[in-house]
């Protein structure tokens, strides 16, 4: 399971970075989304992987080893909301830049090649 997750994170990061270095704004936005997925998976991995373990500990003396770490899940929840909102905002700026410059090049000027 670790190997699959690590591979997934790696592929997402690589694709995200590749798209991020493109000169077109739409690709940059998609690259950022892929990168944020990779980061969210990475946070999940930081809290040790456990399948089928509940993240909430019941009352009384319980063995914490039976439960998944709830903090990374809380962190991811926050990170998803924030990165979603900022990406949406970037999309609006992208549209504004497209309207003002007439091109979707990140510098607002198309090189003739």
């Amino acid at each position, binding site marked *: 399971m670790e190997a699959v997750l690590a591979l997934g994170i790696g592929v997402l990061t690589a694709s995200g970075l590749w798209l991020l270095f493109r000169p077109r704004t739409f690709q940059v936005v998609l690259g950022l989304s892929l990168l944020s997925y990779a980061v969210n998976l*990475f946070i999940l991995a*930081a809290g040790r992987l456990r399948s089928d373990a509940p993240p909430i500990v019941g009352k009384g003396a319980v063995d914490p080893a039976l439960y998944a770490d709830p903090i*990374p899940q809380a962190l991811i929840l926050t990170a998803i909301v*924030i990165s979603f909102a900022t990406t949406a*905002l970037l999309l609006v*700026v992208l549209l*504004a830049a497209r309207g003002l410059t007439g091109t979707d090049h990140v510098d607002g000027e198309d090189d003739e090649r």
Partner: protein
Amino acid sequence: MNGWMHHLIVAPILLPIVVSALMLAFDERRRTLKRALSLGATAALIIIAGLLLWQADGRLDTGIARPRAYLVGDWPAPFGIVLVADRLSALMLLLTSVLGFTALFYSLARWDRSGPRFHALFLLLFAGLNGAFLTGDIFNLFVFFEVLLAASYGLILHGAGAERTKASLHYITINIVTSLLFLIGVAMIYAVTGTLNMADLASRVPAVPAADLMLLEAGAAILGIAFLVKSGTWPLSFWLPRTYAAAAPPVAAVFAIMTKVGIYIVLRLSSLLFGATSGSAADFTDQWLIWSGFATMLFGILGILATRTLSRVAGHYVLVSSGTLLAAIGIGGAALTAALIFYLVSSTLAVGALYLIIEPVERNADEDDMIAGIAEPVFDDEYTGAVEEEDNEIGIVIPGTIAVLGGGFIFCTLLLAGLPPLSGFIAKFALIDALFRADAIGPTAWILIGLVILSGLATMIALTRAGIDLIWTPAEDSPARLSVIEVVPIGILLSVCLALMIWSGPLFRYMKATADVLSDPAVYIDAVRTAPRSGGSPG
């Protein structure tokens, strides 16, 4: 500790959020009301920050100066969210609110009319900044960073226009990537130590096994890159001068404090996590900070000399001050830390004042000059024969606007270049003095001294050149009008700098006490650990 003073620490975060939420209830036509609300809120923030500063310095109630920790939601310290107000964060709060009040006041002249929801965004920026200064754990630091960044995205777009949109497209992209790096760093630190609370982290770092130390340092380094991008460290700084030059002047003035958020966090975390007491992880950041600081200073100095527009000079000056602070943090020592905090306050206020004064100064200039970046030659070498208009020398009327602007500009130049007797000089003098007082003055200290002096010289040259071009060359048309609303905030900022000079003695005692607490993380850790719970045991 009485009730409301205990809860005062949440006010700098809650007040701006509540007031900006309130503004959504009124539409843009109720401008007077919005202005009154936001000015009132920022004025209240100055008072609150002042009270917190007195409290942190031990002047109020108990008389014991120790960091105040506040448990949000009354959860015990390492598990719940903690807000901590010590001398450093209280000082940063006061600095933010003073700069914010003046920038907001300045924006009333006309800038707040150039786009919707200016006041609400401005206040949200303060909520984020204040939260970042007060928070006691690194994940909430991320959340508050995002709050302030989201508000800054809105503010940088304020006023629209193609140039602003292009600059902000880069700014937003860079900051989103930075936020992702921030998250990776947080996740790695959490994976090694199992905690996100700064005080708890500080006590666990010395006990990290050698096998995991590499992972911790990698996490801290990735986290550090996020802060270095924010503080404009070379080579992560190329976005900064352009973005700041594209922003509306009052926005650029408050952005002067945003680079200092990065510096504040570097100062806080390097003293807490990688200070002298953190065992094998100690001092791992120092060399990196010193050399990246030097590179930043050098880049800033070259930038200052190379640009002809004032707003870019100001942007590069921001880089120079960030570089100075980073290098000084890296070299370390209590005396130097005290001096660098003084320099931080002084340079932030001075850059803020410069950003506010740029626009009225450049208003008189020729539009073509501004765009091409070419100015008339300062001295004309051609000999034109004997001076014939001797009688014109007496009774040249200096227009009032030019007198005020010129005076303010000279004041600003002296302040930024660090010439005596203003606070910029005192700050640089204290830095150099602290470097000389260290036991053994090493090559890094000499480089820092050299760069500090060189940066002053470069600033002096660039600003004098620009000042002669823009103010003293006679303009054909009559000088533009300068409203009182614009003069007052510049006056406030410059007189605060004057006050920094006059009361530098007591201020330095405060900075020294701040530096002493920073060099001893145990005080901070203890304050968070023993934070009183209001529901349970009496505080």
